[in-house]
């Protein structure tokens, strides 16, 4: 067992310090050390996207990032997507469009779609399908998820998010 490293990071706008072993993934740290279980583990090797988080503006699989790599980074997880009681447009449209059934993949999809719409507010169906190909859903057949992202994009264009 190696020694633990002190890591300082920003998660959902809050400064967080944690100790982690060099082998621990960011997903393990989030879930097991920080009790932030919103990011899910579906495969632990970057194939399913259930653990998607945004790290310094880039979408990453938290299972494929080491905890120590989070030092100095700014991270957004599913727990930080809503603004208090105000749901993010994606959370709203996922609910309204019935874009979840079991819901285990939902946090990853919402984080991934947010990463897309943050930089490409006009993404069309083809672009959305391409971007979300790293996220697996076994319940919905993707139809309602793609609709929810399109609807959220339209909502966000109507009411620009406050900086």
């Amino acid at each position, binding site marked *: 067992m190696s020694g633990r490293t002190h890591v300082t990071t920003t998660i959902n706008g809050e400064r967080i310090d944690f100790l982690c072993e060099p082998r621990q993934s960011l997903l393990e740290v989030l879930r*097991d050390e920080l009790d932030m279980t919103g990011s899910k583990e579906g495969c632990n090797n970057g194939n399913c996207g259930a653990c998607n988080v945004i790290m310094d503006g880039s979408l990453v699989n938290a299972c494929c990032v080491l905890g120590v790599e989070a030092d100095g980074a700014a991270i957004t997880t599913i727990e930080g997507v809503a603004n208090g009681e105000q749901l993010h447009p994606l959370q709203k449209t996922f609910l309204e469009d019935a874009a979840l059934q079991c819901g*285990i993949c939902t946090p990853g999809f919402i984080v991934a779609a947010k990463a897309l719409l943050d930089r490409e507010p006009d993404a069309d169906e083809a672009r959305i399908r391409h971007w979300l190909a790293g996220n697996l859903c076994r319940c919905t*057949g993707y139809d309602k998820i793609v609709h929810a992202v399109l609807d959220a994009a339209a909502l966000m264009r109507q009411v620009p998010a406050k900086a």
Partner: protein
Amino acid sequence: MVTEAKRAYKVIGTRPLRPDGIDKVTGRALYGADIHIPGALHARMKRSPHAHAVIKRIDASRALAMDGVKAVVTAVDLAPGGDLSKLADPAQNILAGHKALYRGQAVAAVAAINDQVAQEAVKLIDIEYEVLPHVLGPREGMQSDAPILHEALRTRGPGAVDGPTNIVAINQAAFGDVDKAFADCDIVVDDEFSTKMVHQGYIEPQAATATWAPDGQLTIWTTTQGSFPARESCAQLLNHPISKIKVIPTEIGGGFGGKISVYLEPVVALLSRKTGKPVTMRMDRSDVFEGTGPTPGTSIKARLGATKDGRIRALYADMAYENGAFPGSASITGTMVAAAAYDIEHVKVIGYDVVVNKPRTQDYRAPSAPAAAFAIEQLIDELALKLEMDPLQLRLLNAAKEGTRGPMGMPYKRIGHEECLRAALDSEHYRSPLGGPNRGRGVASGFWFNVGLRSSVNVSLQPDGTVNLIEGNTDIGGTRASLAMQLAETLGIPYEDVKPTVVDTDSVGLSDVTAGSRTTFGTGMAVHEAGKNLIKEMTARLAPLWQTTPEEIGFDDGAFRTKDGAKSGAFKEIAAQLAGRGVALTVSGSLNAGFLAGGGFAHAVVDVEVDPDTGKVTILRYTAIQDAGTAVHPSYVEGQMQGGAVQGVGWALNEEYYYDESGRMANASFLDYRLPTSLDVPMIDTIIVEVPNPLHPFGVRGVGEPGIVPPLAAIANAVTHATGVRQTQLPMSPRRILETTRGIV
């Protein structure tokens, strides 16, 4: 699409937000692996690296000597009196006894202070194996010289030969005289079909946590489709009274039939008992592929005969279903569903259940039906080609309807197969041109039984006129909503006034699995009964206040009224009045909704394009059509149809358990197994047909399963039309397409 005069509902048929939705879009919802009990140990499984091997010796001494390791369990801890010869089949699939029967079978488990130590300790458990020859594949398993999995196994059923065998049972469904009927047919088509073992592919791996208290009280948190069946299984496996077991179901991240059986629960219970601490265990993805229950691969030979006017007269089929390593019964349902969608007088279907060195198979959405439809619906397509008839018209001519002999020999009640076919014929999709080379269109029908079974709910009246609905069925895809809607409809109150909660096995009456498309149907009936009981009890307490008798008070359209019309009050108002008079009210609905729940039918229309150079099949357009009886929440009905369709696309085009020569699944990861992604499918159009189910107060039919039955055949028919070559084997991967179209191997 509504096919007949529909009752006017206020809540049913609307699309409200699901009550558990907020937790699931914000990351608050707690699934199996999210249960963190303070002080819990972490456990890991040691699995067999061999497909078939005698376990000569297990030595855990090196593991137990490691710092942080607290306990190891093996099958000896599960066997009655520690005698491995008394280990029943279900227990052997939890921890292997004398033999490992498939690669990935659990052999031992270790509990340690954390997951990392547990993983290291697993490597230090030394197991000596004597490797035996293995057999994979249903027909291979049936050969007389095949390696035998279970020495004591003898075939059950007609034509059984005495002696060691891998054939568990021979099942037969027979009506009329097929030999004579085939002789009278103008056209006979036949072929041989095969499908591969595939996995349900739920995104959440199994996870379970247990605490065993010194007084024997066992509490288990688990992600399961059935908390009561999990309790029952653990009671049997651990020889522990059910009164001392409480199962707390977590949110469940998909199941599709794969989360009915227990795997980790008895093991964490044993480890907790040994260590005196809570123990938690989670599978990783390769554990899920190799160590849980996929659905059988099949080999089906079938023959269909018709007269020249298109009347199908006779069906013969010989169907072999893999059971995996332990005896199962997939072929029983296979033989029953083979002819179920049509009115065919003469039928003979023989089904073989065969054990092979693969994981013990489990249900997967309409289990056994998609493979049967893959064969039969392609023969019907072939018949349509030969007869030069429209494939939908041919099906319509022969479709099962009310009164037709059903899959168990009894006549159908009102069913919606014809209505689904007419909806397909009328669809914009079917009437539009294909438009382009290398394209094909395929259609197929699908039948599934749907079941009722036992359900219990409690309903308690709150002082503000809202009601709490307590139920025992885990919500796998929106059933909190569909049940709350049925209660709101029964009580004539807004959906928002019903608060549904899924509770543990101590807190509600017995409820069977969330499976068989039964929750919205069967638990819905319990909800309806509870609602009626609540009205009755409220009426009884209201009567003295209104200085009348209960018989003089009616309830309609959400309001209590005296028959003379003198007094009336809405549900909410009366609830407040009763609360003001000190009334407390809790009622229950507890029933058995019957075994069969009224058949469910689905249909698919699919357009594909096949790249002649690469063999890649692209799904251009897909329309799913299904009889929902009454669609309680149409969005979630569509969701079931779309989800089943896309699972079918994966099964048809690329999913399979791909084995190497050593009997190892070579693609036990999401990367290599490859579920369909959002890029692989178009939008899935849906047409909900509503032919009310006479067995349910609101006409509801189960909708979870039928949608996966047609796609394998519909896609194969489409690819056949695009390539001109009948597609009899799954998956229709690029390699397979090039083999069949250009002879490239």
